[in-house]
């Protein structure tokens, strides 16, 4: 009894309290930069943003004013095309893993997807550069979108697999019992049931590539003019933020913050609505 109430006990209680406090402090420390960044982006971005930002092209170096209409279009082109090239193959590969993936082949694919998702995005840029840009002899929207698609692919694949696995087998059995062939049961019953969850995963993947900069530097490159072609170099918001941020011009810094505000809003809206979609589904069940 004396041991429990004595000094030893006090020491144990103190160590535990100190440790618990350290954990709380760590959590607070980690959340501080998030609010710091969001505050900066909101405050400086609001100062910098105006109508011209959305409608004008960049002015020649040294002149103030102008906007990033070309960058906004470029980001939409790149992300749209990357989604077209990255999502369907990713979903089908995920279907393969969920339906036929308990084989050695399945393990190889799963392993590749996991490893691919940890590869630095800048090396994806070098890959697409030597594969596409060197072959076509020009930087282009297609090259940039292909790089983004490679980054999306493993995420979409693994999300699709995991969500298909969550669908109860009894649904499939019911379909098969009605005489539906396996492939139709997979597409019309399993995939349809899992679709909302997969959509959320895809939103997160899109949000991630929308802010990617490094792989675009030498695939999509940049372009100071309006370009709606897919075969020309194109501007994009992330690359423009980078170029403007490291430039010495005050007015470009202002526009970099404005662009950051647009980009961060886009990414946060995608993330938060994905989160809300998941929560509503959980509530319904």
């Amino acid at each position, binding site marked *: 009894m004396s041991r429990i109430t004595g000094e030893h006990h006090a020491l144990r209680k103190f*160590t535990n309290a100190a440790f618990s406090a350290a954990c709380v402090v760590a959590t607070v420390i980690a959340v501080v930069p998030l609010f710091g960044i969001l505050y900066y982006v909101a405050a400086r971005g609001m100062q910098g943003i105006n109508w011209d930002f959305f409608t004008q092209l960049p002015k020649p170096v040294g002149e103030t004013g102008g906007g990033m209409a070309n960058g906004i279009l470029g980001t939409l082109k790149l992300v749209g095309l990357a989604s077209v090239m990255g999502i369907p193959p990713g979903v089908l590969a995920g279907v393969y893993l969920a339906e036929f993936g308990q084989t050695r082949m399945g393990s190889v694919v799963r392993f590749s997807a996991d490893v691919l998702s940890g590869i630095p995005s800048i090396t994806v840029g070098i890959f697409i550069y030597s594969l596409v840009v060197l072959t076509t002899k020009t930087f282009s929207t297609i090259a940039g979108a292909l790089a983004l698609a490679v980054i999306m692919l493993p995420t979409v694949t693994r999300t699709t697999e995991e969500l298909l696995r969550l669908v109860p087998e009894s649904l499939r059995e019911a379909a098969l019992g009605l005489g539906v062939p396996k492939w139709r049961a997979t597409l019309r019953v399993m995939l349809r049931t899992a679709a909302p969850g997969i959509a959320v995963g895809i939103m997160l993947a899109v949000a991630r590539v929308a802010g990617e900069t490094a792989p675009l530097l030498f695939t999509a490159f940049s372009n100071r003019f309006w370009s709606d072609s897919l075969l020309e170099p194109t501007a994009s918001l992330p690359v423009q933020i980078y170029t403007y941020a490291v430039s010495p011009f005050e007015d470009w810094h202002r526009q970099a913050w404005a662009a950051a505000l647009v980009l961060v809003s886009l990414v946060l809206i995608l993330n938060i609505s994905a989160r809300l979609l998941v929560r509503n589904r959980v509530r319904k069940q």
Partner: protein
Amino acid sequence: MATHHESLVRPRPKWLKPFGSEVNWGDAIFRTLTLLFALVVVAALAGMAVQMLKASKLSLATFGLGFITSTSWDPVQDQFGALPFIFGTVVSSLLALVLAVPVSLGIAVFLTEMCPAWLKNPVAFLIELLAAVPSVVYGLWGIFALAPFMREVVEPALEATLGFLPFFQGPAQGFGMLTGAVILAIMITPTVSSVSREVLNAVPSTLREGSYALGATRWETLRTVILPFARSGLVGATILGLGRALGETMAITMVIGNRPQMSASLFAPSYTMASVIANEFTEATGDLYLSALAEIGFLLFAVTLILNIVARALVWRVARLPAGGRL
């Protein structure tokens, strides 16, 4: 019992044997089609390895192993050595781990062992949002907020207190190794903490309860029961964080100062492998220059590939990773 009996299902033609065991044509086509797309994933990884090796062939042939030990980076003389960049990448990433791992473990413990249920999801979500902010926005914030703060507050304070160490000497510039490491640490914290959380969640609660029942405090339970069980998974989480830090490009390029030198002082500018590729790849003139940059990319690719394999193997011993998340 009859040795031969009629099947109710239409038998499958023999010549279709090599294509699989499906009776239904649609099934065979469906399986083949999805397999083709699954192979795209494998092909992307293999294609990357091959293309990058091909792109760096010239540099590999010219410099051989000397490439990673030479410190001269002189495009005019066509002399390329990657050591300053390897140094910058390794030091900034390790420093980032030193800063990020204790904080991340603290978060993981807070969220799994201490946090009231209503607070769990909001806090976890806020930390995941840190991972959602684009790298280039971190860089922008780094240039205009973090670097001045480091120059005016953190670096002078470090010099005043720990200035007798060679790491904390020299002019406080704001743009340098230390600022780079801090920004990397912020960026990898979500990765390390969310994987650590998965790992701690996978520790059977019976172990925890047994320890508490014996009168152990939270700290004692963690140290004597949970950590031994979760150790390999937590090491895996750390290595995944290291892999991310090594390959991080935009944010660190914008704050590390981009000078290929090896200085003991953490205040001095440095240069990382990813940064030199980002800065010089489009401007590189000459095949050897481009090939040298590609070889740096190949080294980065190979190292992160190995780290990822090791980390996933370690984490899988304890817990399943969240679906397809890029960690």
